[in-house]
């Protein structure tokens, strides 16, 4: 498995190294490294960044680390070896990614982080992250309102190594815990995964048939939970997600999942590329390293305006 993965990575690196001279755009190449595109959120990031890179005259090198810090490190090696001008990164772990970003910096390649923070400053040029805490508060306020300020509920947590899992959970509880009649009867991770959320929801429901609501750390888990609730004939349960995916938008439109919180992933990725371009041309972005982007509550009222992690005006 490990050997296979390594082989695959070197093949990818070779392909890029080989492709570079013939494809090289005027401005060089920007590497875009994200988690797996199985989650449409990360695909939207990669698509947004790639589109902007091409628009600005760069070649885009799209890579996925599958939330594996070792793989991410190898991808950085490949990108450095390929002589990319800049790296756009949605990282594979707040602590574990610092070394990789530092390695690129030492090689003279600036990194621009999106979506997830790392635990050091001064290593990346920009860290543009959604205000997950503010977003989680919005989701929780709506969840509490839908629950009539009381009742039993369950929480699905994201992957523990991802800082956003903890931030969102804290944001949820910052609001929900101010309501004494809201009773959390189950809290479990489903690692951002739809299939895992399905299984977790099934067992949560068996153990706690009185559940009235489920608050989920992201949309893919909300979809998994909703599928399990539908299978159990419990479509009365209130589900709230986070991300603003098209899947959840469609579910909201059909009266399934009740709400989600949009992270402007597409715009965020494009902004990172614009800042990279600015930095490469002028040596500075003119902005603070850490930049927050506000999230937006999505309900039946505005779901129709949502498309690929962007909200129409």
């Amino acid at each position, binding site marked *: 498995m490990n050997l296979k993965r390594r082989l695959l990575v070197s093949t990818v690196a070779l392909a890029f190294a080989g492709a570079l001279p013939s494809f090289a755009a005027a401005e060089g190449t920007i590497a875009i490294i994200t988690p797996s595109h199985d989650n449409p959120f990360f695909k939207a990031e990669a698509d947004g960044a790639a589109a902007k890179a091409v628009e600005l005259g760069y070649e885009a090198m799209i890579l996925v680390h599958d939330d594996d810090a070792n793989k991410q490190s190898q991808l950085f090696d490949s990108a450095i070896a390929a002589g990319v001008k800049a790296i756009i990164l949605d990282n594979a772990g707040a602590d574990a990614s610092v070394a990789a970003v530092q390695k690129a910096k030492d090689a003279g390649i600036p990194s621009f982080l999106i979506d997830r923070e790392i635990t050091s400053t001064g290593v990346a040029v920009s860290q543009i992250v959604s205000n997950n805490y503010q977003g989680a508060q919005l989701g929780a306020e709506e969840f509490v309102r839908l629950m009539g300020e009381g009742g039993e509920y369950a929480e699905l947590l994201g992957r523990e190594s991802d800082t956003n899992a903890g931030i969102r959970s804290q944001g949820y509880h910052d609001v929900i815990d101010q309501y004494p009649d809201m009773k959390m009867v189950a809290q479990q991770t489903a690692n951002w995964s739809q299939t895992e959320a399905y299984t977790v929801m099934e067992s949560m429901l068996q153990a706690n048939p009185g559940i009235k609501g489920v608050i989920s750390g992201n949309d893919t888990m909300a979809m998994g939970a909703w599928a399990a609730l539908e299978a159990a004939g419990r479509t009365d349960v209130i589900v709230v997600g986070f991300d603003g995916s098209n899947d959840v938008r469609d579910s909201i439109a059909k009266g399934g999942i009740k709400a989600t919180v949009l992270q402007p992933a597409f715009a965020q990725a494009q902004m990172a590329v614009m800042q990279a371009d600015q930095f490469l041309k002028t040596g500075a972005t003119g902005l*603070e390293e850490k930049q927050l982007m506000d999230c937006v509550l999505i309900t039946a009222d505005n779901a129709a305006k949502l498309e690929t992690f962007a909200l129409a005006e």
Partner: protein
Amino acid sequence: MKQLALTAACVAAVLSLSACKIVKTGGDTDKAPAADASGDDARIAALMTETWEPKLIPAITERALTPAALRTALAGGLEAAGTAHGKAGSGVGAAWNFAIAGEGTVTAAKLDTRARVLDVDTDGDGTADLTLQLGPVVKGSALRDFSPFYDFSGFRDQIEFAKLGRALNDAASARLTVPEGDPTGKTVSFTGVLALKSPTETWLVTPISVEVMP
């Protein structure tokens, strides 16, 4: 007004109390709070003592517009109104935050909730044009984002920054006296802050003072 001073004194007492607690558990008083999350409460408490009464309350009172003046300013666009009278929150897409002070008639009161609110008509047309949040659950971070002396880049991360927002909201709602009985139809005076992302959205005010006239 006397009541306000009394509540202010209470808040100050609570704040200094929590500071005492830190001395007790932290041991060494000269030691700075830990940089990680374990030091958040101590750091936020110190920041609150330093800024809430001495800086933020006066800043809100001094910069407050009347509802009519804010409406006039907003007619020229949110960006222009914000630049002239408000303060933008940190980051892209963040709201403009304004201070507001005025009077109006309570058109509706929702007091049987943890997020108590009064709907208020300030232009005399009989329909509410703003909502006063009486807490204890207060939405948003307008108090934090209105203040020029809290800057996101000076905080460890969004969690610590959010804790400040919550501490400010809690301090504000602790100052308020919730009206007894149904205040609908009565006159209310208020001072507070609000966050706007569009010039036409409903005004959700986080008040630092609310007084329902008898």
